[in-house]
């Protein structure tokens, strides 16, 4: 019998009950909650007279709707101008109080984007199952945890039963071999992977990311890669536990201590795929081939390296692709343009659960330091992932670098990634964004999103258009 993959091990250690038809009951260790996908779940509990199975397994924080300007944030939830958003955030506060769930509310320095907060607090641990009513829950797989997004009915199901009904996915290994070039980041790696396998390439699979190109990444970088597994169609992204993982977790508020820490570290050493494990699919990418990536269209798979020409619909053979490309060209207003550098940018957004951690902000600050944002830009904003990321950045003086360069320094939240708050694109505006989705209307009605790394977004903010950050920093 062949060995087990990391995914197999995590699945087996959480199996409560296997059913004949292939579905199973899986135990959930941590559920993260936010204001958008939880209200109907709590309402469901109330209507059925049910109580949460184990409140200590949940952690909540508002992130999607929260405003990010100082002026609005100073008075907490009362500062939310949009009454509908305010009701949703207040509802989360009320539900957490009613059911006894730990919440970092808008006045708590630990508030932030759920996928930044969980790991930052050590609430996300290796070997766990983690769910949240948000597809970017795959982020937590960076810790060798089995983590994925769920719908609101499942949020309610996990609250009530501590379990999920699941069917096991197939195993895919995406191996990035070799060494990444200077200024090529985790974001470029994952965009290149999505470009290679497509947005449905990982559907039905749990993707384990491995190889030296992944192992060399920091935890922040690994979270960026796993975060976007869903953009390749895979609900689950995973990375094996190593010394980098354990070092990151150590000493965090919710991480185990003393004897428990020793026991945990011993157990976590097994959170790797066995040498003889069989994957249903293996994709190999050479790290050296990856250049800074930019999406040109309306799907994350519509991505190219900065120096490549924008692909045209008429050159596509597959009719579905041809039609998709034509539609994307029209929506993105690309007529008459051939290179990414031809696109004049209106806004720059540095933030989101993909790229708002301290390392992302450090890199962006390094690029803009001593430079000025292009005068053609309407706005460039930097939105830290949590109150603690913000505090750390300010301790390092990063906010001063951003502000001196003409970028706005904001309060933590999801912000312009999905534009549920006031931060959004106007119709027809092009944005260099470190977020994860470039769908039509994602960042605002008619808005045109280009996904990039923090370094590429920072360089684009200065130049006013896309440039190769590698070339840019030389000048």
């Amino acid at each position, binding site marked *: 019998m062949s060995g087990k993959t990391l995914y197999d091990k995590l699945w087996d250690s959480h199996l*409560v*009950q296997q*059913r*004949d*038809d292939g*579905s199973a*009951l899986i*135990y959930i*260790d941590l559920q993260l909650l936010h204001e*958008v*996908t939880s*209200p*109907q779940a709590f*309402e469901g509990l109330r209507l*059925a007279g*049910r109580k949460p199975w184990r409140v*200590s397994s949940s952690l909540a924080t508002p992130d999607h709707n929260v405003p990010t300007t100082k002026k609005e944030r100073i008075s907490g939830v009362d500062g939310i101008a*949009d009454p*509908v958003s305010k*009701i*949703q955030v207040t509802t989360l506060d009320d539900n957490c109080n009613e059911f006894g769930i*730990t919440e970092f509310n808008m006045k708590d320095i630990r508030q932030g984007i759920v996928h930044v907060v969980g790991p930052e607090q050590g*609430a996300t*641990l290796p*070997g766990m199952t983690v769910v949240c*009513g*948000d*597809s970017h*829950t795959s982020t937590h797989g960076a810790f060798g945890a089995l983590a994925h*997004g769920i*719908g609101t*009915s*499942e949020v309610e*199901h996990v609250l*009530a*039963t501590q*379990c999920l*009904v699941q069917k096991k996915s197939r195993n895919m290994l995406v191996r990035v071999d070799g060494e990444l070039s200077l200024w090529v980041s985790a974001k470029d790696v994952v965009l290149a992977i999505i470009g290679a396998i497509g947005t*449905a390439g990982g*559907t*039905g699979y749990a993707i384990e990311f491995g190889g030296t190109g992944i192992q060399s990444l920091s935890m922040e970088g690994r979270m960026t890669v796993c975060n976007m597994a869903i953009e390749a*169609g895979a609900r689950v992204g995973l990375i094996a536990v190593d010394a980098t993982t354990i070092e990151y977790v150590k000493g965090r508020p*919710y991480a*185990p201590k003393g004897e*428990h820490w020793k026991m945990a570290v011993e*157990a976590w050493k097994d959170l790797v795929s066995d040498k003889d494990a069989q994957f249903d699919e293996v994709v190999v990418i050479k790290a050296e081939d990856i250049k800074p990536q930019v999406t040109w269209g309306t*799907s994350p798979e519509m991505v190219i390296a900065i120096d490549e020409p924008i692909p045209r619909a008429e050159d596509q053979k597959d009719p*579905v692709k041809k039609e*998709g490309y034509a*539609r994307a060209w029209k929506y993105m207003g690309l007529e008459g343009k051939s290179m990414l550098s031809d696109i004049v940018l209106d806004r720059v957004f540095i933030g989101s659960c993909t790229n708002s951690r301290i390392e992302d902000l450090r890199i962006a600050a390094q690029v803009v330091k001593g430079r000025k944002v292009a005068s053609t830009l309407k706005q460039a904003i930097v939105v830290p992932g949590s109150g603690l990321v913000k505090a750390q950045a300010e301790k390092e003086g990063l906010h001063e670098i951003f502000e001196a360069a003409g970028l706005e320094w904001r309060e933590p939240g999801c912000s312009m990634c*999905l*534009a*549920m708050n006031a931060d959004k694109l106007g*119709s027809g505006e092009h944005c260099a964004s470190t977020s994860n*989705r470039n*769908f*039509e*209307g994602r960042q605002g*009605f*008619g808005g045109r999103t280009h996904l990039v790394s923090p370094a590429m977004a920072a360089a684009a903010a200065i130049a006013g258009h896309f440039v190769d950050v590698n070339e840019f920093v030389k000048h």
Partner: protein
Amino acid sequence: MRPFTKHTGLAAPLDLANVDTDMIIPKQFLKSIKRTGFGKNLFDELRYEDEGQPDQECDGRPIRKDFVLNQDRYKGASVLLARQNFGCGSSREHAPWALDDYGFRAIIAPSFADIFYNNCFKNGLLPIVLQAEEVDQLFAEVALREGAQVIVDLEKQTVTSPSGATFEFNVDNFRKHCLLNGLDDIGLTLQQDSAIRRYEEKRMNDAPWLFLPRGQ
């Protein structure tokens, strides 16, 4: 949950691949704390010329005439024909809620995104995967004749096209059972509470650090 057994209805063809959940229901409508009322904003950006707002009346809004659901012949459609990777992107269950609220009972496509597919079953909405050629045939037949109806039989696991061609589809037994009988998932899982407790006890022993109380 409302059971799904057999359904006969008008089919509307949405000829677009990779339809994401942002397209199905844009973010401004996710601010609701209810499960209902999303139907009028289903496919909001594809359906209307202007940017929709929550709580806005939609009757007087300028519509995109070429969009399939705005065409008279597809008024009252309850079966949606779609293309590959339908429902990709965000996990928002507001997407199936909006489809259901609009009046759709089944969606037929060559493939679906995982989370969306799963969310449909929780809401009495049946997502059906057929072969690409079969979906092509349905698209062609539906275009051919106005008022063309499709029959979806969950018990038999078949889709019958307007011309009478029958296609079989797969569905997990458990999901089928729940949908046919309109069963509440949570109630079923809670019947297994002793198995869950047993698992917890063992796990508490093996990995006690996962069960520590979490202070405010």
